[in-house]
Every structure is written in structure tokens, then in C-alpha cells.
């Protein structure tokens, strides 16, 4: 796989992972171009398309598009399921994951992806193994967090700071 992108229906990039050295300028150009192509496609269309010299496999989950660019020889269907497995991993970790989880915990989304894929290849397809690795990290962390309650409380200090909630799109669960 060459790269993976997560972006919203509004064209906001939520996660990007590049498996081949690409300059920052080129990345931005590719992201812009590919988002445009994918967002223009209609719901019932095929999940695969040829783009530049690559094959693009994408799938939409609620408000988020998951988009992988693979090479000529790579298997499209298994890539589609690779996306699904990643969504399942996110879902299992966050508990019915939604776009908001990925926005606020972007680093976790990266960690989970890293446990699942490395250099663009599947490292382990077992949900258990991947989550175990992440869980270990969290366990190490639990000890460290000084006041868990503070986290919950913190948001009550900012009532109504999320006007976008009126659109609900970001809270829609990705998995149904």
C-alpha cells in the first residue's frame, strides 16, 4: 500500500499515513486531488478506481471516507476488508467509534493503525493481538493518569462549546 487517508464528507482530512517517502507539497496535492475524485462519486458506485498509476480502494463509513492507494498487483477486495478490519479495531477500542473519537484521539488512531499495518503491509490480522498491544500501552498509562475524574469534569466547564453538534455528523457511529 502506498498511503491511507481518512477524510470527512466535508473534505476535512482526519488521518494520513504515507508508506512511501513523499514530499509535503506532493502529499498536499495528492490529498486534494484524490479527495475531489472520491467525494464526487455516487453511493452505489464501485469501490475501486484507477488514479494516476495507482489503484484506489475506498469505503465510506457514516461521515468518514477511508481511502487506500495500492499498487497494480495488489488485491482490491482484501484491501477493502483491511479497511473494515481497521474500522472494527477502532470501534472495539473506542466503543462504537465516531468521527469525533478520531478527531480528539488522533494519536490513538495512529497507534492502532501502526499496530495493524506496518510499512503498508498487514502485520497482524487478529483483532485480539492488535488490541492487546494497545491495551498494554493503556495499562501502562492508567497508572500514570493522576486524576481521571478531572477529565470528565473538564468538559462540564465548557458547556455548549461544540456548535457543530447540531449537524450530528461527527457523532454518527461508523459501524452499524
Amino acid at each position, binding site marked *: 500500500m502506498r498511503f491511507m487517508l481518512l477524510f470527512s464528507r466535508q473534505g476535512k*482530512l482526519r488521518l494520513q499515513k504515507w*508508506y512511501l*517517502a513523499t514530499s509535503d507539497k506532493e502529499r498536499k496535492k495528492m490529498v486534494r486531488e484524490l479527495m475531489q475524485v472520491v467525494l464526487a462519486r455516487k453511493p*452505489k*458506485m*464501485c469501490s*475501486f*478506481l*484507477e488514479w494516476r498509476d495507482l489503484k484506489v480502494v475506498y469505503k465510506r463509513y457514516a461521515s468518514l471516507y477511508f481511502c487506500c492507494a495500492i499498487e*497494480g498487483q495488489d*488485491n*482490491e*477486495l*482484501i484491501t*477493502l*476488508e*483491511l479497511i473494515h478490519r481497521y474500522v472494527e479495531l477502532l470501534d472495539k*477500542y*473506542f*466503543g462504537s467509534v*465516531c468521527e*469525533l*473519537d478520531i478527531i480528539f*484521539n*488522533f*494519536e*490513538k488512531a495512529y*497507534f492502532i493503525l*501502526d499496530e495493524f499495518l*506496518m*510499512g503498508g*503491509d*498487514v*502485520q*497482524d*490480522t*487478529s*483483532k485480539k*493481538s492488535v*488490541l*492487546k498491544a494497545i491495551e*498494554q*500501552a*493503556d495499562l*501502562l*498509562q492508567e497508572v*500514570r493518569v493522576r486524576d*481521571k475524574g478531572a*477529565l*470528565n469534569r*473538564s*468538559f462540564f466547564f*465548557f458547556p*455548549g*462549546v461544540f456548535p*457543530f*453538534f447540531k449537524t*450530528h455528523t461527527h*457523532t*454518527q457511529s461508523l459501524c452499524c
Partner: protein
Amino acid sequence: APVIAAYRRPRERRPAEARARPGADATAIMPAVSKGDGMRGLAVFISDIRNCKSKEAEIKRINKELANIRSKFKGDKALDGYSKKKYVCKLLFIFLLGHDIDFGHMEAVNLLSSNKYTEKQIGYLFISVLVNSNSELIRLINNAIKNDLASRNPTFMCLALHCIANVGSREMGEAFAADIPRILVAGDSMDSVKQSAALCLLRLYKASPDLVPMGEWTARVVHLLNDQHMGVVTAAVSLITCLCKKNPDDFKTCVSLAVSRLSRIVSSASTDLQDYTYYFVPAPWLSVKLLRLLQCYPPPEDAAVKGRLVECLETVLNKAQEPPKSKKVQHSNAKNAILFETISLIIHYDSEPNLLVRACNQLGQFLQHRETNLRYLALESMCTLASSEFSHEAVKTHIDTVINALKTERDVSVRQRAADLLYAMCDRSNAKQIVSEMLRYLETADYAIREEIVLKVAILAEKYAVDYSWYVDTILNLIRIAGDYVSEEVWYRVLQIVTNRDDVQGYAAKTVFEALQAPACHENMVKVGGYILGEFGNLIAGDPRSSPPVQFSLLHSKFHLCSVATRALLLSTYIKFINLFPETKATIQGVLRAGSQLRNADVELQQRAVEYLTLSSVASTDVLATVLEEMPPFPERESSILAKLKRKKGPGAGSALDDSRRDPSSHDINGGVEPTPSTVSTPSPSADLLGLRAAPPPAAPPAPSGAGNLLVDVFSDSPAAQPGLGPSPEEAFLRFVCRNNGVLFENQLLQIGVKSEFRQNLGRMYLFYGNKTSVQFQNFSPTVVHPGDLQTHILSAWPSPAPPGLPVDGGAQVQQVLNIECLRDFLTPPLLSVRFRYGGAPQSLTLKLPVTINKFFQPTEMAAQDFFQRWKQLSLPQQEAQKIFKANHPMDAEVTKAKLLGFGSALLDNVDPNPENFVGAGIIQTKALQVGCLLRLEPNAQAQMYRLTLRTSKEPVSRHLCELLAQQF
């Protein structure tokens, strides 16, 4: 179960219904943010950013935060790990929003040496995303990685390996490429570490293969295929698949191991593999990877292994017919992913007719599946099946479904696949149907793919034309339906074919005449019409409805609406008319004489009008007839349309064209034009259509660009055209293909000798210029010119002892040295242009320097098995070039051998089962890339013919080498 419980916990912390129910109070949802380690400041910052109403507000907020972080990092108070982590994470967030970050790297590097996992993790994430090639920093990062790799703490080791893989830079490769294989095969490495090490090594190998040393560890890597842990196997297969492509022999044993692993998975029950079962499909990722690995090798030679593998493949095909174990799309996708990979392997082997036909039937079912994805993949996969002789017929049976797909699919990418497949399945038997369907589709086709469809139709029409009137009709239809998308190559080609085939000329003239009657016709139609009527209008002049004046006024009625280029072409048609139909002379001279022509603002039009007018007034009928004679046949070359399609589409595009093996009878029409001896003195091997431009057409230059001074050329003697002694320059040039020393040119005045040597991608050439006369040459200046884009391909400089412009005494010889570097593969040789004055008269000549791509060959020895395997790997149709030709010299095996060695490749004995044949291998070394070449020459003494086949990893190289070498025998 405890694991699952652990992950339920966070969810319980927030009211589940609040997330599910739209419009729930925002605050109720906040705990979403607290998952794992909460960094409160980060969450607040992110929500601030999200609250910004404008881009300006966002930038303001970010700048404020950056200032804050900067002051914290610079402050006197030492930051604790948590704060450092939080700020680094904020910087990362800002970077991912698309803003530039120019500080914080050092703090991130500091985090790497923290012994708190999450701090280390954030540090590594920052480094992976924002790596900076600052060498000082890289050294520190490498140091931290080194410590973690040595820590024996598997989680830390994995983090370090991930970082190496994510960055993947050469510096990191240099630092760690030697260590990772050790970690990978060490007996005490944890499974998770092995997995990471395998993929990390793969990433480094892809980035810089030279840094990864092969060694005894390779054998142990192969045995990871037997590992207990499925995750380890999954990671290892990816690594092996990549490594074995360059070193197939070292990894040969992986074939039988992969087969047995695959067989165990395929025959396991859907629950056997526990967590590696995905929606009732056992280990789909691993299966796909194993099948892909097997595609790196030819079919197993061991009968038992092969039997087991065939059994696996059959099982997969059988399972496709079983009812699904789940209605979920994930189940069928995973199952079909394996199925498609299995079919790819069957196609790769291309040796089991039974399996190929079964695969084809299976794909046929998918063609009508309700899932768009499956229809798309089936169309794509069938394209490759169509090129196998075993399944070509089976693919053809689906023609109606495919045509229907072309008409009814709602997604353009699927329609495009359908068009590709129709192109691939086309042969003599169905060409008319397919071409007419594609033409019909063209009327409504998406703009994005019209040009490609036009090219495909043009190629199929030419290739499978049984009668050429059908071909002409088809191309004219193309222009009519999609004139804007008909490129020069396409309409040039129809002119070439009509010019070369006299049986179709009358029909073509009649058809274009009719087509031009349309009130609005495309400019390309005017071009084709103008050219054809100018050449062959006389063939229909007998009919009063298309008498010469009618033809002329029809063409001239379009004249004013056309572009300059077309008007220039029409002017040439008019002067040809004056020759063909003397009765139109007065009218046409009137047109040429009109102020709008003679004083046209466009210099090309004005020149043509003036010259044609003068020519028609001063030249006698005989001279006119000679100058304006019918165009000579065009020399045959590869269809430039095909070349264009290949350029557009890349690999696979030409597949339908290389079907001579399944349809030998197609050979006679193949090129559409009988081969004719070249009338051009120095044919350019470049594939653009150009006989038109390269051949000196007497007076009707149909390609106006760059043809401005053609008339001048016709009437003046070229000074360089003095007859030489001995072989013509072209013959002399060809002699140098297989040798490095000799006489390149000789005439009464001058002799040019060459001595050259080549090593790798470098060469040195000594040129000796001998003055054969007793008189001094003045201003003797030999220069090297690079036509076209050659400059970028060959670099040369000459510290010459005789700087250009010096005199050369009678009887003396001067020497010039050229240093040559081959930058990348090239087709046209550089030119040597020699100018001097002899007895006051300027002399000039231009020669091709004997630098051809084969000079940079490095012979490669290999065993028969390797040869065939590589041969098989270069099996894409465009990688192969083949020529069957008559022997021009006595067929002597020793001479042939010497020529092949001179050509540069190694000669391999005991490879070809037929000892009469010659087989060779070599690598062309250029600065930019290496091109592996395999060749096979099959002499047929009885027929006095040869068949020469070249396979290289680069398409133009195959063709070019084939052409060069074929001229040697």
C-alpha cells in the same frame, strides 16, 4: 473475555444513548475525549480549533498556542514528561492540520528516552510524522532507537522498529539494516517483535535494497512460513515475496512451504483458526499473500507439491459455488479476495487448460453479479484471461454480457473495464461486432475515456480488417462521431494505409467525397479528405457528380472555416489538383493569386501560395508531373497508434495486439501495410508517425509544422549528399552495432575512423579524421549534436586536441575524443556534424555516431532454469519484441556467435533445447536504471530465415534491440 471487558469500560463511562441519539446534549458526549490517557489541554485546544468560525480565527488560535508552547519549551522551569508529551502532541496536531512546524523536534527526541511508554510512544509518533533530515537529530534518534532495540523489552523494541519503518530513510537503513535480520531470526525474540522486524526489514529493503545483506538468515526466514504463530507467518510472507523477486534461487524452498501452508488453511474448517478467521473465512489475508508469493515462481516441478497445489486451487474454485456461510458482505469479499488471487495464479501459470476455463466460467458468473465491485473485478481479471490461448475462446462466449455492461453500467470506471475487455477479446471472428459496438458507445461515452476508445477502435479496425473499405469506413466514422478525439496519429495512419494499398484508394476517394458533403464536418475530415482527394481524386473524377471542379469547390467551401494547418494542407491539395486536373488550373491559380493568400499574414500560408503559384506558372507539365507525383508508399513501422495507446495505458494495453500465437493467420494483415523498402535515408526509429515528416514529399507536405522550407530543399542540391566510397553511411553505421572499431565514413576527401570502448554505462570514443587530399581543410569543425531529447540520455564532452575550427593539413590526421555517459535508455544515436572548407567551397556532412544502446550491455551468465524463469517473468506482451526475417548473409553458426558476442550479450549454452538456437542474456547499464535483456535467435537454415525474440524489462528497449540486431544477419 477480560480483554473485551477492558474495552467495554470506557464506553460505560459515557451514556451510550447520548452517542446514538442525534441531537443529544453536547456535554454529555465529552467523555469520548477521555479515552486512554487524557491530555486535557490537548482536548481543550482541539475543541477551540473546531470552534473557530474562520480560517483567520484558526490561525490566530494556533499562533497563540505556538507562542505558548515555545515559551514553555524555552522557559527556565524544566518541564515534566507529561507536559512535554502534551505539547509535542499539540504540535503534531497543528502539523496535521496542515501548518508548518519548525520547533519541538528536540523535545520529541527527549521523549524517546523516557521510560514511560506513552511518552515514548508520542515521541516516536512525532518523529515518524515530522522527520527532519537534520543530521544532528537523526544521530540522536538513532541512538534512542538503538537503546530501545537493545532493551529486550518487546513493546519498546516494537516501537523502535515501527519508527524505523515509518521513517524508512537511507540513514536509518545504514544504521540498522544489519541488526534487524538478527532480531528477526533470533530464537528468543517474541512473536510480536518478529512480526515488526519482518515488515521493518521489508520497508528498508524496498527503500534501499543494497543496504540489506543477504546471508544465512535468509534460509531461516523461509522457515518462518512454518511458524506456529499466524501473525508471524503473515508478516514473513510479505517479506519473502519481496526478497524472492530479486533472488529467486535463495528462496526457492518457500514454494513447497507456501503450498503446504496454503493447503492447511484452505482445507481447515471455518472456525479452526480462531481469531484469524474473518467472517467465517479462514485467514484470508495470509491466503492472499501466499497465493501472491507463488506467483513469483513457475509451477512447482515436484509432482507431489504441484498436485497438492492444484488441489488447493480446485478447492477454492469449488468453495465459490457453495452457499455463503454468512450474508455479510465482509464474508463474500474475503472469500472472493482469495478467489481472485487464485485466478491470478492460474493465469500466471497459464498451463492448466481445465483450471483456466473454470476460472473463466466463474468470472462469467460475476459479470452478472449484483455487486458492482465484483463486476468490475471480473471484467478486469477476464482481460488477462483473454490473452491466454487456453481461455481466449471461453472469454469470447461472454461477449454479449460485456457489450451490455458497456451500455448499461452506471459507473464509468466499470464501463472502462468493459471497453478494455472487449478490446482484449477481439479477434478476426468478432471484430466487426466489437468495433461497431464501441463506435456506438463512443457517441455517449464519457469525455474522459473518448480518446482511448478512439485509439482502440482505430487499432482493432486496422488489425482485423479483412477488407480495407471497412477499415476506411470505420476511421471516417470515428472522425464523424468523435472528431475532436481523433489524434494526429489516427488520421495519419489512415492516410498511410490508403497510400500503400492501391485496392482501397478509389473507395477511399469516393467515401471521403461523400463524407465532405455533410454541411458540418469535422476539421479532421477535411484534412483526410483534402489529402486523399489530392492524391486519388482522379479515381472518381469520371463521375460527373464528382468531377474535378466539383471536388475543388467542395474542398474550397470548407477552406475558410479551417485552421492555418488545415488550410496549408489544402493549398498542397490544390497544387496537386493542378497536376491531376489541368482544367482546374485557372480557377486554382485565381485562388492562389487572391490577396488573401498571397499576402496572408501567416508566413506558411503565404509562402505556399507564392511558391505553388510560381511553380504552376513556370514549370512544364512534365516537371509538374514529376514534382507532384503520387506519394511513394510509406515505410512500415510499428503502428504509432499502438505506441500512443501504450503510452496512455501502461502495461497490458497492447495485449490484444500480440496474439499472433493464437491467430497465426493474422500476420499478413497485422501491420495493415505491406512492408516496403524504406525510401528514407536515415529512418528515425522513433515511433511517431512519421514517415510523413521524415520522407521528403515532393511538394505536398501534409504535416505543415516545420515543413516551411520544404520547397527550397527540393530545388537545391544538398551539399552533404556527395556520393561516398564503400558502404553508405547507413551500412557503415549498422556494421558498428556489433563491433567497436572501423571506418565510419570515407569519400574522396575525408576518411573518418572510429575506435571505441565501453564499460558499464560509460564509453570513450576516438574519432580519427584523415585529410585524403593534398590541400588543407580550413575551419575544420566536427561537433556532436543530440537530436531531440537525446541530450538528456547521453552526455558527452570532448577535450579535443584539435579544437573546432582549426585547419587540417593535406595528408594529415587529427584525433578527437568523446566521453560518453549513458544516462538512460535511448533510441536515436547522437549525430556527428562535420563542417570544413575545401578549396574555398563549404563542405558539410552529418553522420550517425555509432553509439547504440547495446554498447552498454554487460553480459550475464545464468543457468537454464534461471533463464527460463526470468523469461517467464518478462511475459507482458509489451516486454517482448519479435522479428522473423530473411537471412541477408550466409547462415554460419560461428559468424552468428561472433556477432551476438559483439552485440554485447552473454551466450548461454545448454539453455535452449534445440542446439541450433542461440540464447543470450545481459544487462544494459545506464545511469538511471538497469535493463535486463534476454534474447533468443532461432535460425531456420531450410527457409533461410531467422526468428529473433527479445524480452527486456523496458518496452522500447526490446523493440529497439530487436530492430538493431535483426539487421545484422
